[in-house]
């Protein structure tokens, strides 16, 4: 009765504690794969700026609603917009309030016309090419269907404004045109209206995904019913995130269901009773819930990947149950719960210790998600261990009838092969594995590609490409950050940078860039421009005179312009705050990132980067300029951490070996360590053999091979090489592990697939080799 009370208290205490922890935090599950990554070692100002750029990017969603004609597209777009607004998940949704950018540009830049110079004009005047400048002005007057009108000619006879705006619109290469305030794009026989929404939360939130994605799917279905031939296209981070979550959820269900089903069938077939099955299931369940609660308490959230891997890791606690129940086969009628516990205690305890060390190694991995896995699995395993030790004996008083099963006979035969040292069987198994390992290891190659974590969904990607083609915008994922003491200082530094970028553009190493200083000139640049322009309007035979004569500009207009030019010298100039406040900045406002701890920060967008090294070099020269390459940064991190994790794994193996030597002596310790160590080499060999590159995730998986593999050898060491019940328990555990991780090898996410495949090969090898650790022990233990 006493032991039952302890068991009850143990379970009740764990349940209450976990429930309290989960209730206090709420079960926060993060699905953003990038959240698994460590923050890079950049300084906080840059990190904050990068974060702002990426958060802003991630929250935007482009929805294109198309129909054969504008009226249809308009009706369909309004329907979609109504539903999007009703969802409550959009902070902003722009439907038909797009302003006429040209009108706003004219309103904003016309007052600045006396110091407005485009890049080309500036270069001509700086080089003294007055004839070239004059020719450009005249060409603008005579151009086919030019934008030049009387209102402009009166105020800006040198056409400085259109020259400037023409360059700026070249930079914003978007195809969309305005129609009744809607942003529209045409395609053969169709017209699309673009709705640009900004989510109120991160697209990685599952509540946002669950609310919006089914709604868009529904709209795709019902739109053609109300508007003939209407369709809907979506691009943004949201559909990618949702597809990722969906495949993550599918994988959890497959892996979880698969291994659970295998455990159920195995246990019921083996033990002819539901009791072991129910106990094992509850043990794993309680372990997972405790692990989840511990992670929440420590990290505040649990990552989806942590949940997938963590549950699988806790799943190896099924070993403890198997060893406990398999004792029945050995002791038959003499079996008693206390005797069984006493018999498995050293094996299970050592198993917990070594697996714990193996998994705790993950805690030192610099990845937040991996640290979560370490906490999840170590806590889960300890809870499961406690359950077996405390709850199993009082709950399994009456042994259920058992029979020797077919599997046990196979195990007897296999362990018989290992009874003596170095039989030809041992040579055959070891030799085969060594050949695989050597050939494979020679073919190994490393990969640190960011696509390990993100394999874009094909359908989502196709839709995104269609939208990109329709809108005709193709910004690079890389960008530059510019820091300045204040707005004016920022502009000066950015102008210096864009000067170098333009050089790269003319060399064909870059297609284009987008910078605030292209739209707002620094005070210095304005003064320079004015000085250059002054030479054009003053004196006899000036460029202004020549142009006026050629196009027939009345003298009054010319005189009025010169007077206005002189008067404008003291006019207040528009700086960044004025630009930000004006609708003209709408398409580019996101480039401004505002105040930082050191001053102000802004971003420079890049288009068509052909020479990444050249752009990186621009930032290398200057501490105020930072080059950001999100994909490249992640690949660098992957590589860096792959190398670190190799050492971490080696250290884990070394530490476990040390513990084993302390218990079993030098040769004993080496023998116990041999199966998992050989298994690790074999699994690397298999990777090489099938041509899979080695990434961080394969190395991580080797920790698991150690954790599980060492369990196998330990039990043999404790019970003897030819103990068939030990081999049976190990076989059962191996089968469940293989099913669980074998299914992971089919994952669409490369990282999970790599993890699964490595464990699959490693565990199989560890299992086959495990009897060798029992050598030098008399048969029967």
């Amino acid at each position, binding site marked *: 009765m006493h032991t039952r009370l302890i068991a009850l208290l143990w379970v009740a205490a764990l349940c209450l504690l976990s429930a309290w922890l989960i209730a206090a935090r709420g079960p926060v599950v993060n699905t953003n794969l990038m959240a698994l990554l460590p923050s890079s070692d950049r300084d906080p100002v840059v990190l904050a700026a990068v974060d702002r750029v990426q958060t802003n990017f991630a929250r935007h969603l482009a929805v294109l609603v198309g129909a054969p004609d504008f009226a249809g597209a308009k009706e369909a777009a309004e329907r979609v917009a109504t539903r999007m607004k009703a969802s409550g998940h959009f902070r902003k949704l722009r439907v038909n309030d797009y302003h006429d*950018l040209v009108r706003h540009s004219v309103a904003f830049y016309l007052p600045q016309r006396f110091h407005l110079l485009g890049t080309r004009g500036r270069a001509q005047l700086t080089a003294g090419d007055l004839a070239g400048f004059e020719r450009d002005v005249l060409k603008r007057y*005579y151009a*086919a*269907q030019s934008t030049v*009108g009387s209102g402009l*000619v009166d105020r800006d006879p040198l056409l400085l404004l259109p020259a400037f705006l023409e360059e700026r619109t*070249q930079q914003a290469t978007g195809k969309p045109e305005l129609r009744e305030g809607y942003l529209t794009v045409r395609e053969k026989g169709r017209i699309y209206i673009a709705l640009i929404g900004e989510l109120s939360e991160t697209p990685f939130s599952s509540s946002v995904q669950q609310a919006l994605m089914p709604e868009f799917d529904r709209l795709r279905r019902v739109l053609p019913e109300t508007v003939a031939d209407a369709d809907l296209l979506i691009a943004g981070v949201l559909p990618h995130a949702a597809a990722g979550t969906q495949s993550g959820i599918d994988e959890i269900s497959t892996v979880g269901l698969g291994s659970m089903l295998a455990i159920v069938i195995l246990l019921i077939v083996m033990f002819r009773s539901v009791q072991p099955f129910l106990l094992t299931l509850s043990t794993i369940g309680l372990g997972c819930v405790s692990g989840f609660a511990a992670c929440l308490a420590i990290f505040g959230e649990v990552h989806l990947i942590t949940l997938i891997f963590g549950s699988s890791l806790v799943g190896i606690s099924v070993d403890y149950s198997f060893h406990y129940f398999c004792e029945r086969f050995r002791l038959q009628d003499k079996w008693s719960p206390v005797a069984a516990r006493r018999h498995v205690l050293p094996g299970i305890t050592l198993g917990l210790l070594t697996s714990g060390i193996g998994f705790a190694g993950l805690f030192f991995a610099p990845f937040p998600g991996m640290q979560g896995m370490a906490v999840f699995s170590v806590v889960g395993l300890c809870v499961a261990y406690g359950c077996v030790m405390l709850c199993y004996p009082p709950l399994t008083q009456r042994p259920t009838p058992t029979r020797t099963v077919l599997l046990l006979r196979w195990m007897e035969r296999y362990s018989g092969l290992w009874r003596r040292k170095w039989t030809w069987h041992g040579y055959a198994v070891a030799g085969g594995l060594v050949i695989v390992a050597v050939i494979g290891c020679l073919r190994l190659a490393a990969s640190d590609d960011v696509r390990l974590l993100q394999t874009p969904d094909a359908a989502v990607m196709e839709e995104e490409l269609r939208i990109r083609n329709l809108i005709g915008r193709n910004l690079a994922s890389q960008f530059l950050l510019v820091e300045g003491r204040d707005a004016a200082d920022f502009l000066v530094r950015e102008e210096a940078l864009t000067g170098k970028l333009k050089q790269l553009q003319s060399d064909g190493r870059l297609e284009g860039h987008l910078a605030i200083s292209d739209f707002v000139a620094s005070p210095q640049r304005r003064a320079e421009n004015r000085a250059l322009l002054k030479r054009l309007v003053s004196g006899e035979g000036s460029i202004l005179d020549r142009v006026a004569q050629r196009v*027939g*500009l009345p003298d009054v*207009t010319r005189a009025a312009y010169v007077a206005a030019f002189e008067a404008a010298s003291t006019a207040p100039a528009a700086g960044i705050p004025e630009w930000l406040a004006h609708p003209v900045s709408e398409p580019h406002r996101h480039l401004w990132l505002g105040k930082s701890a050191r001053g102000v920060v802004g971003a420079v967008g890049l288009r068509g980067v052909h020479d990444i090294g050249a752009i990186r070099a621009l930032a290398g020269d200057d501490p105020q300029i930072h080059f950001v390459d999100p994909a490249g940064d992640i690949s660098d991190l992957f590589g860096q951490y792959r190398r670190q994790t190799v050492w971490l794994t080696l250290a884990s193996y070394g530490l476990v070996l040390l513990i084993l030597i302390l218990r079993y002596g030098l040769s004993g310790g080496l023998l116990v360590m041999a199966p998992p160590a050989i298994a690790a080499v074999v699994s690397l060999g298999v990777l090489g053999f099938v041509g899979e590159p080695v990434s961080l995730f394969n190395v991580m998986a080797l920790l698991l091979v150690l954790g599980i593999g060492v369990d196998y050898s330990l039990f043999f060491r404790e019970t003897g090489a030819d103990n068939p019940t030990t081999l049976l328990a190990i076989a059962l555990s191996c089968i469940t592990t293989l099913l669980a991780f074998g299914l992971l090898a089919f994952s669409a996410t490369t990282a999970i697939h790599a993890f699964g495949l490595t464990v699959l090969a490693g565990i199989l090898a560890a299992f086959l080799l495990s009897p060798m650790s029992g050598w030098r022990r008399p048969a029967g233990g």
Partner: protein
Amino acid sequence: MRRVFSALLSATFVLAAGQVPAAGIADIGKVLTPAPMICGAFTQSKSLKALARPLVSRGRVVFVSGTGVLWQITSPFPSRLLFKTEAVIRWDENDVPKPTGFAQFPQFRALSDVFFAVFDGDTSRLATVFDASATVGPDTWTLTLKPRDKEFAARISDIDVSGGRYVEELTITEGQGDRTAIRFSGLTADGCVLSTAEKGYLAY
């Protein structure tokens, strides 16, 4: 009150009904002859109120059905444009093509619509974008187009097109009172010989 409301409502319907293609437009097709290729010369005369005399430029136009309208100014400053249904391509002085969307250039969009309609001989489709009125005689026709889009109408108040078998004259009147008149001459559907360069530009 209700009566006033229903009167307003029916007025709206009448206005809406007014948006169907004007009766005359379809008749233009009886005179205007579509052809797979049309070419000829043009003179563009831009009269700005702000300037004492018009800005005159000359050039050659080539229309290829389903491809585009190649607009080449030869004097006083050579330049080249290719109107496509979805964009306009401009070649800079280094002969590098610069495709531009219609977003910033609604006047290009209007011209593109008009060019394709008159060269294709199908003016009735213009009624979707413009309020159109037409007079059609036995050998000649005139067409007046007023943009429906308010923002657009603020810039271009109307476009007058006239012609016979082919389009002959096109006048764009802007909101500010400036006028651009384009006169076509020697348009032909049969005797078109394209230079290699022209074929290259059209193939963009």
